């Protein structure tokens, strides 16, 4: 590594920042939650995680948090994800494939436009 100049500090920071944002816990604009119950994994949710990660990498997105959680209850529609965009009700998408996940990432996560074909539900479950 050659000696750096003052302007290089900002470049190194930019390059490393996403990792550090992850560690400090945000702030994140979007939270993508891939349901990874036994049913989800059997239906291929690991591929969905890979698809989202590769999109985050490709687009250089820094404000999206990708997490996993257990079964969402509608096992026949797996693989499923719940996407929470800041200030909007959460949206559940189902019967995903890696290609569909990529489309959802482009249109909804980045573009803000709901991909109607794969939507299962919007909003929260009722609380007791």
């Amino acid at each position, binding site marked *: *590594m*050659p*000696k*750096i*100049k*003052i302007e290089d*500090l900002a470049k*190194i*920071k930019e*390059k*490393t*920042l*996403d*990792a*550090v944002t*992850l*560690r*400090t*816990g*945000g702030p*994140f604009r979007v939270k993508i*939650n*891939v*349901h*990874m*119950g036994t049913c989800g*994994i059997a239906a291929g949710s*690991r591929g969905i*995680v*890979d698809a989202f*990660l590769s999109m*985050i*990498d490709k687009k250089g997105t820094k404000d999206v*948090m*990708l*997490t*996993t*959680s*257990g079964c969402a209850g509608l096992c026949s529609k797996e693989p499923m994800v719940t996407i929470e965009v800041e200030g909007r009700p959460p949206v559940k998408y189902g019967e995903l494939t890696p290609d569909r996940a990529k489309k959802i990432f482009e249109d909804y996560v980045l573009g803000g436009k709901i991909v109607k074909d794969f939507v299962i539900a919007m909003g929260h479950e009722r609380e007791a």
Partner: protein
Amino acid sequence: MKPYRLEVMLCAGTGCVSCGAFKVKEAFEKEIKKKGLENEVRIVPTGCNGFCERGPLVLVAPEQIFYCSLKPDNIPHLVEEHFLKGRPVKNLMWTPPKEKTPIPIISDIPFYKHQMLLALRNRGIIDPEKIDDYIARDGYSALAKVLTTMKPDEVIKTITASGLRGRGGGGFPAGVKWESARKAAAERNEKPYVVCNADEGDPGAYMDRSIIESDPHAVLEGMIIGSYAMGATDGYVYIRKEYPLAMDRLIIAIAQAREYGLLGKNILGTNHSFDIEIHRGAGAFVCGESTALMASLEGKAGLPRAKYIHTVEYGLWNKPTCLNNVETWANIPLIMNRGVEWFTSIGTGDVSKNPWGGSKGTKVFSLTGKVNNTGLVEVPMGITLREIIFNIGGGIKKDKKFKAVQTGGPSGGVLPEKLLDLPVDFDTLTENGSMMGSGGMIVADENTCMVDMAKFFIDFLKDESCGKCIPCREGLRGTYDTLDRICKGLGKEEDLQTLQDLSKVMIDCCLCALGNSAPNPVLSTLQYFMDEYKTHIIDKKCPAGVCTALFEMWIDPVKCTGCMVCLRKCPVNAITGEKKIVHVIDKVTCTKCGVCYDLCKFDAINKQ
């Protein structure tokens, strides 16, 4: 940098490493590979996370889920449940004592919630062996700002105005020290030296070690800024050889900084040049004292000298020398970045006219002794002892009664329960017979004998006294002998006066701060626990049951159920009895080790 879904921030400080952190790391690596998660989950070794009581520790980002007391056996389940299926594992989280519900998120845990991290701002967040991680957290941006937009005297004025006082114990305003070194160098047309004191010798204290282990570049950046302000081209870090992990990380950090041109000639392409060398200390307590440290750095025996000539004028190799502690240096970049107004908003007093007028910023303490959550804590100045010990420390172990807290290391003082609401800052602690010191904090409970505690610290200081000046060498020996006599039941009433007299001579006549402050443990225990001394001397009793010559152990026949537990565990077979028949201790054989006392579930064993 490739994005990951999860980052496992694994504490790799000395505490967690000795509890098996690297074994846990191996288990994680194996399991993550097995589950094919290598591209989604990354393990990042960090510096000390502070909650050493519960190591090995892991923090999972971005959810900030905190796991403690991990064992390699726990890892397969944890990886499958949390990393793969997204279900955090409750039984590995921290659960408050006497409660059942664990607290998953780190910032909700009381030990962390009440802390304020400045010197330790990057602990647990960056990999200390990666300079890029430090830069991503605004590292070296203060240096860039200083080198390009500020004149050296502006830097010194900022540090003086911030009210930053030396964190090594003396509490001398850093800006004033820098100014004196710069002035002395300019008058004699010499280059001053910039030195970092990482010779942390207090028993039970490890603030500096943790700062270097978790964020070595913060210390380096502080020193480079200091070198620019004072016009220095050479610097040293004096670090004790007993800190191998801290030293390794420092060596790596210096090499990385040199590679980036942050140390060496023409730093960041400017005209300023500065480099740092590491000097390994051989572990003498006295070498934490400025003049002894400098003598040792020069290759001589680590003996202090009288300080009517200040080291800022004639220090290392008779050149003007600015010596600051690790924590002081680590605070510098933050002050330069965030400004005087922000820094002075934290802490006590008013430093706008007088840098001695208050205590600003935070202080790192190592909280140890009979407290539930031992570990490393950073708190704002002015916080009360009660908040540190009870809110962060979680109170006294086994619900025993609080008796005293020793602050400031071996030559600090002991403060009793009635002073628990004292605000912690440099001046308040000194006024009450103790001191800030470098930040050791040892909590004593009702089973601690204060005479014995004073004897312990004097014993340490007696061994560490360099022997150069008579008041320290002979004064400590005399003090120790007197205390030892009292603990053995041979004390006389005039011993109390002897202790006072010896202390006065040491305060007035010793060469260096080791001797001047050494009487503190004796004087403060005499001040607050005179009753206990008198019970030892007049009644020949040790109320806490520590001094073995001053109590007898016996079994209360009413409470004893004859359960055989003490009988089986007694290392010298001094207990006789049969099942369901009252046991008896043979006083001739008994060594008063206290094993039976700790084991008895029926409170039947007495120390009186």
